[in-house]
């Protein structure tokens, strides 16, 4: 049974978008955590309900491989959904940038034939405050990138036949790559966190004043 609709909370959307926009050179992917809304679904824990990945510079529609991958997931869980974020698209004529996102599942048209994509409506639901899980996921990204780089470097550095010049060079490549991460990911992420904190501090002051005013108004009634 296909899923009728997907509700994606805006703070979760923010994390997916951050991830998708982190690189234009390769596809990134992640998992979506949530719950199925059914009448008897009280008390069920949150679980993986879907997967997302990015399509930098290419169309938002899933490739044959994507549709097949989605079909595999659906064999384990009929309600599993796939999300694709297409970014780094530019209309050269109008100089307009574009970002698209889509939600889909897979069906087999006839027995033994290839899988096809079916559209699943998706609504991004407002969620003004950013949840703890979303914040933690957001700051995971630079840590993961750093870890991947360190793993690659260590593997190469452990090769015994390399001369000192090669090693010094590789060390510089590592430094260069880490600097790219700091400049493109960690720096802007830290900037965004600090700005968000500033915004919240101002909101708190404003809301506090409003609360005092309303409390007085209620007391006077």
């Amino acid at each position, binding site marked *: 049974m296909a899923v009728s*609709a997907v509700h994606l909370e*805006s*703070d979760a*959307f*923010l994390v997916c978008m*951050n991830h998708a*926009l*982190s690189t*234009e*050179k390769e596809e990134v992917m992640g998992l979506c955590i949530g719950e199925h809304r059914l009448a008897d679904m009280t008390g069920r824990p949150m679980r993986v309900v879907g997967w997302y990945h990015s399509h930098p510079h290419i169309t938002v529609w899933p490739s044959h491989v994507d549709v097949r991958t989605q079909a595999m997931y659906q064999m384990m869980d009929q309600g599993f959904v796939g999300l694709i974020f297409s970014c780094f698209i*530019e209309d050269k004529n109008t*100089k*307009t*940038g*574009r*970002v*698209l996102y*889509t*939600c889909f599942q897979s069906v087999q048209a006839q027995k033994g034939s290839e899988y096809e994509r079916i*559209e699943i409506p*998706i609504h*991004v639901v407002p969620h*003004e*405050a*950013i*949840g703890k899980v979303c914040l*933690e996921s957001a700051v995971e990204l630079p840590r993961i990138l750093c870890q991947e*780089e*360190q793993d690659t470097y260590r593997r190469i550095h452990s*090769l015994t*036949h*390399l*001369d*000192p*010049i090669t090693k010094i*060079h590789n060390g510089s490549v*590592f430094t260069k*790559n*880490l600097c790219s*991460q*700091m400049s*493109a990911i*960690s720096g*802007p*992420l*830290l*900037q*965004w966190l600090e700005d968000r*904190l*500033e915004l*919240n501090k*101002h*909101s708190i002051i404003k809301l*506090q004043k*409003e*609360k005092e005013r*309303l*409390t007085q108004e*209620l007391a006077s*009634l």
Partner: protein
Amino acid sequence: MEEFNTTVRISGFALSSLMFHHLNSDADVEGLILGESVGEENCRITDSQIDHIQFEHTINIQKHIPCHKLHSFYSNVGDVSEEKIRPILSDYQEENVIGWYRQRRNTRQQMTFMEQVVHQNMRKILSNRELVFMLLTPSQATASGSTHRLEFSAFIWHSSQYINIPIFVSNLGNLEQQDYWRVSGTCPSLGQSEAVKQHRTQFFCSGDELKEVRNISSMNDDLLGEMQKVCKEVEKSERAVEKLQEDLKELKEAIKEHSEKNETQKHASPDEPKENVLLCSALRTLFPDAPSLQTQTLTVQGLPVLELCCNTDHNVDIPTKLPLILENQHTRKKDTAPRLRKKCLVAGYSQRLKRKRKTNDTSESASDSGSDTEIEMNGQNRSISPTF
């Protein structure tokens, strides 16, 4: 020959943050953009010896300040005032304002007339020639609602017209791990050279680890630690904002309930006149066989509406609450049918009542006094309605 080349750069996080602002609102949203503008002059000399000067301008969008409502910094006719911008900026400097943005659903990537007016006024107020207007226009790409699109671009005023500038989303891009050399060059002399051996310690720490790698790794670890700290503070602040918004919601509901209750109380009186319980009890006591007297509702002709007559015993303690009734009751003769004739009231009644009290003759009815003034009012036997 001059060439004007401007690009706008924004990080993926800043762009996502902008999208986040609009996703949480049903209406259009707008705000200010802060950042810095970097100019570079590139001189290229070609074979033809003509100086080819290229001005490259990069406008870096670092952050945005969302406005809580539309028209916060401009009037209905697009007049921008510095006094209105100041509070939005709060601690940020005006020099850091490099533009403003607007997000509107299902519309074209084209500046509206109002937006153009506001932009021109912003340029005058902020004295920034390269002020940028960023326009984001989300829309649905499929009828089913499965696919959504967001278009975005920047506009600047140049050479008496608005031109579209592409926005470059800075990202990791070319993280070429192929840059690592997996094999060394085939010259053993290099590895064995005295120069290399001598300077080796400047690059390597003990145990073959490169100093550079150690330094950059520790700097990166500290940066991630700092980010973690700020993340925790942001989380606390998000919960604080959420709690305050909940409190405000509750307060507003309580105030609404209170005012609704007051309103119903105010309106209750004219719609449903309260029954004069004492009067009803008095009439019932004085005229128990005349139920038509227990009515507040008369027809247009002045006749009591019998269906609306009160037949509730209000359990009023007559001797305590209505002592005069009892005196009156004892002195009057019982009447069988209500008399509908009306005659005028006479002031002499009070004198008669005083006389009755003195004599204390409860068997004597008012009609036996011999007075020739008759007081009748809807079946009452020479008694004026008692006033309370």
